Structures are given as C-alpha cells and as structure tokens.
C-alpha cells in the first residue's frame, strides 16, 4: 500500500515539474522567437527614437525607453543599495537592540510585500502636491523605494549570516563597531551583491511603479525634470496596439529585457564566485 502511494506521488511530482517547466520554457521561447524575429527584421529600432507618428505605426524605435530604463534603474539601484546596506548594518546587534531591530524588520517586511503600484501612487501624490509633472527624477525615486526593501532584506540576511567569531575577533583586537561592520560587509559581500542585482532586476522589470511618475516620455530623457519612459512601460502600452509594427516593438523590448536578465544573472554568478574566494576556501 505505502509503495503504491509512493509511486502515485512520484508520478504526480514529475507531472508538476513538467507543468512548471513547460509554460516557463514556452514563455522564453515565445519571447525569443517573436522578439528576436522583430529585432532581426528591423534592428534599427534599438537605436532609434520615436518619430512623429510612432504610435500609429510610423517611423522610429524604442531607444528612448532603453535609455530611460538605464537612467532610472542605475541611480535608483545605487541609492537604494547605500540605504539598504546602511540599514542592514544598523539592524545588527552592534548598533541596535534585538527589540528595536525587530520592529524595523516588521516595517521592512511590509514594505517588501507592498505592491509596486503603491510606490507609484505615493510618488504621484507627492508630485501633485508639488505641482510637478511626471519626470525622470520621480521615476528614480519610485524605483529606489521599490528596490530598497528588497536589497535590504538580502543584505540583512547576508550580514546576519556572518559567523559570530568574525565579530568577536575584530572586537577582541580592539576594533570599533564601525570597523567591525566594515569587515562584516566584506564577509557578506557575495550575498549583498546578489541582493543588489536582484533589486536591480526588479527595478528594471517593473512598470507599475514608474508608469504614473515619469510622464509621457516619447523622446530621449533630456534631464532630471524632463519626462521619460522605461522598457516595461512601453511593453505594457504597446502590447495591445492596433498596429503590427508597434506591437512588434513591444515584443522586441521584452526580448531585450529577458536578455538583460540573463546578463544580470551571469554577472551575479561571476561576482559571487569572485568575492566568495575570501569567504569559502
């Protein structure tokens, strides 16, 4: 009897694995075929900005969205990482008591679970309050808010995993809390960098946080207070277009996003190996 159950369950498991992998492989396949195809047909869309009748099937490409994503995600990730590492260090016992750190972790957990659209709405409310139109700077802030709890969580986890002997050792040599924290950051660096890259990925792929906050953005972002747009936003906006060429650009953009994701993954693995050589023998 129990062997029959074992067999049945095993069958169900293999079935679930297939059920998981098939759609995921399909999604990558579809994106590569559709988006790659669109790119091969018309590779200039990568380096051209929209022409006058772009959304009506006219000339142009989505270079503005590539640059927009780039200008928003990089600063956001840098700011969010600084905040996140500082917060993660603060949450350790060197600086805060267990109880205080516990309360802050609860808040961080809530922020981590907050849908990105709320950050978008929050920044939008501030924009309305300041009577300012959507702009690149607002997009950067939205993404910073979105990435911050994500990176903090990974950094906190990585720093909490530093063996307590490291901490005792630096203290016993007469290091201050700050000097000890620097060593802890060194030790946790592989985990922190992985977290930063995950945050970067989330920022790169998120449309909901920036769709309200960056304005219309149908040209290259000209400055911090000019409107801009991002890759996921144009995918969302153009996916349902009546014009084939506009839709094709959405496919191409989503292909580009997936490629970027794989690159981030490769970089992440590379850094992990590079920095963990001081941690693992």
């Amino acid at each position, binding site marked *: 009897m129990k062997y029959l159950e074992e067999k049945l369950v*095993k069958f169900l498991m293999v079935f679930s694995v297939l059920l998981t992998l098939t759609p995921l492989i399909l999604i990558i396949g579809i994106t590569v075929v559709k988006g790659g195809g669109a790119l091969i047909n018309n590779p200039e869309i990568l380096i051209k900005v929209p022409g006058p009748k772009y959304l009506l099937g006219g000339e142009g490409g989505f270079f503005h969205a590539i640059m927009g994503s780039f200008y928003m995600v990089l600063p956001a990730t840098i700011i969010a990482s600084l905040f996140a590492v500082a917060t993660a260090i603060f949450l350790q016992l060197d600086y805060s008591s267990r109880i205080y750190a516990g309360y802050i972790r609860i808040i961080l957990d809530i922020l981590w679970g907050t849908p990105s659209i709320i950050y978008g709405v929050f920044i939008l409310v501030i924009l309305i309050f300041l009577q300012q139109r959507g702009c690149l700077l607002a997009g950067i802030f939205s993404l910073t808010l979105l990435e911050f709890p994500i990176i903090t969580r990974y950094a906190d986890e990585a720093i909490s995993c530093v063996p307590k002997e490291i901490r005792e050792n630096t203290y016993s040599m007469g290091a201050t809390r700050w000097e000890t924290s620097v060593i802890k950051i060194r030790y946790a660096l592989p985990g922190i960098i992985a977290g930063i890259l995950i945050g970067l990925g989330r920022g790169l792929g998120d449309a909901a946080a920036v769709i309200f906050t960056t304005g219309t953005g149908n040209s290259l972002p000209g400055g911090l207070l000019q409107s801009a747009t991002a890759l996921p936003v144009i995918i969302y906006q153009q996916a*349902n277009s009546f014009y084939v060429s506009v839709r094709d650009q959405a496919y191409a953009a989503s292909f580009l996003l997936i490629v970027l994701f794989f690159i981030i993954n490769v970089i992440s693995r590379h850094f992990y190996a590079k920095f963990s050589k001081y941690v693992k023998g």
Partner: protein
Amino acid sequence: MKNRIYSRLLKDHMASHILNLFAFLIVLFFFLILVMLITKSVPVIRKNSIAELIFSSKWDTDAKQFGFFPAIIGTLEVTLLSMLFAIPVSMLTAIYISEYASSSIKTSISAFIDVLSGIPSVVFGLCALLYLVPAVSMVMKKIFSIQTTGMCVITASLTLSVMTLPVIISLIVESLQLVPKELREVSLSLGATKWQSVKKILFRAAGPGIISAILLGFGRAFGETMAVAMIIGSKNKIPVSVFSAGETLPSLIVNSFGEMMSVPLQQSALIFVALILFIIVMVTNSVAKMINIRLSQKWRY
C-alpha cells in the same frame, strides 16, 4: 597614539548616528505612506461612506459614485484561483527537486527556476496576451460553446500562477534544504518510504518556511498589476463566471488612472484603493508572522 583612538571613536560615533538616521528615515517613510494615503482618501470617504465604497457595485464617475466591490471580488477570485493552481504544483515540484532529483538535475532545475523568478511581469503578460488569451477563447468556444474574448479571470489566474511558481518553488526548496539530514535518515531508517518521511517529518520541520513561501507567492499574485491589467479585460463589474472579464484592485488603479487623475475626488477614490491594498498587505503580513511564530513553536524539532 592617543589622538588616533579618539578620532576612531568619533568616526564610530558619527557612523552610529548616521545609521540611526537611516533607520529613522525608514520608519518615517512607512508612516508617511500611510498618512498620505489616508489623508488623500478622506475626500472620497466623506462623500461615500467606507462601507459604501467597499460593498457597493455602483460605478458612475459623473455621479461621483465609486463602488469597489467588483474589483475586490475580482481580486479575491483571481488571487485564490491562481493559488489553487500554484500551491499543489509548486509543493510537489519543490519536493521533487529537493528530495527526489539527482544532484545534477537539482542544480540545473533550480538554477533555471532562480533565473525565471526574476523575469518581469510584463513579459508574462505579453506572452499570455499573445497565446493564452486566444487559446482560452478558442477552447471555450469549441468545447463549452461559451463566447468569451479570452480576456477573463481564468486567464489572469493562470498567468499569475505560472508567474508565482518560480518564487514559491525556490523558497520551498530553500526551506526543505535547511532541514537537517539526520531527520531524514532517522525516518528512513525506521522503514518509512520517502514520501512518508516527507509527509510526516519534512512538512513539519519545514512547515513555517513553506507557509511563508506560499504567503509570499500570495502577496505577489495579489499585488501584481501590469500582467493582470493586460489580460483581465478590465470591466468594472462583478465577474459572472471565471470566463468573464473583471478587474482587480491594482489593475483598476492602472486602467482608470489616465481618465481619473485630473479630478480631485476621482483621484481620491483611486488613492483609497491603494490604501486598501496597503492595509491588506499589513494585515496579511501580521497574520503570516503570527502563523510563523505559532508553527515554529509547535513544530520544533
């Protein structure tokens, strides 16, 4: 020598203050969001009572009637359905990866799933729009002879479940891997089959981790905005069946944003939706925390 130690201590002291400031900023930011969402929701709450906003289905922007009941029902339906697919599949897959698969398959599948858990939701939405929507429409027409565009609750649920699978699976695998090897060996040495030891021992030992993985997936599905907005059909009516178009709270914000943000009261209505979302996140988070504490006390090993 003397001076050096004091300058080091000063640096340490300053670092401590700066870090304190950072922590304070987080707390401030959290309450700022909360306060801002609440104050901005006040106009619409003054106009229609909270009960009216939540339980009424009337939606007439000109008459300034905002009932979010359809979107709330839609959110519940979509989230629960997607979890209905995702939970069993992800648990079985995770157990297979962690307990049954050979180590080479294990590393390759979990690396693949890790990569996938980062793919942006718009990509999922786009692919669903391309193929799943027509497929659902066709299947419904051919087999059940139901007319549907394919942009409906079930499509959104399916997409969300595929989207949340990698997230849930990788977290469950992680918590299963944390269970000490000895526990497995003890159970197997008593003559239990693999599945029996998974069922009786591992589920308990990894219980809190599994539950928080599922809750995280739930949160992702519930808060997902763009993919849903692309394929749910965006109709602000209570969905008659899972094959009719609907709306979820986040997709409602995105879809009505353009037309509504210009008028203060309508803007306030949408911010009220964001407030509901935020409150639900806080509540589920607290519940998750409580369950986690309870379980890890009860299922200690």
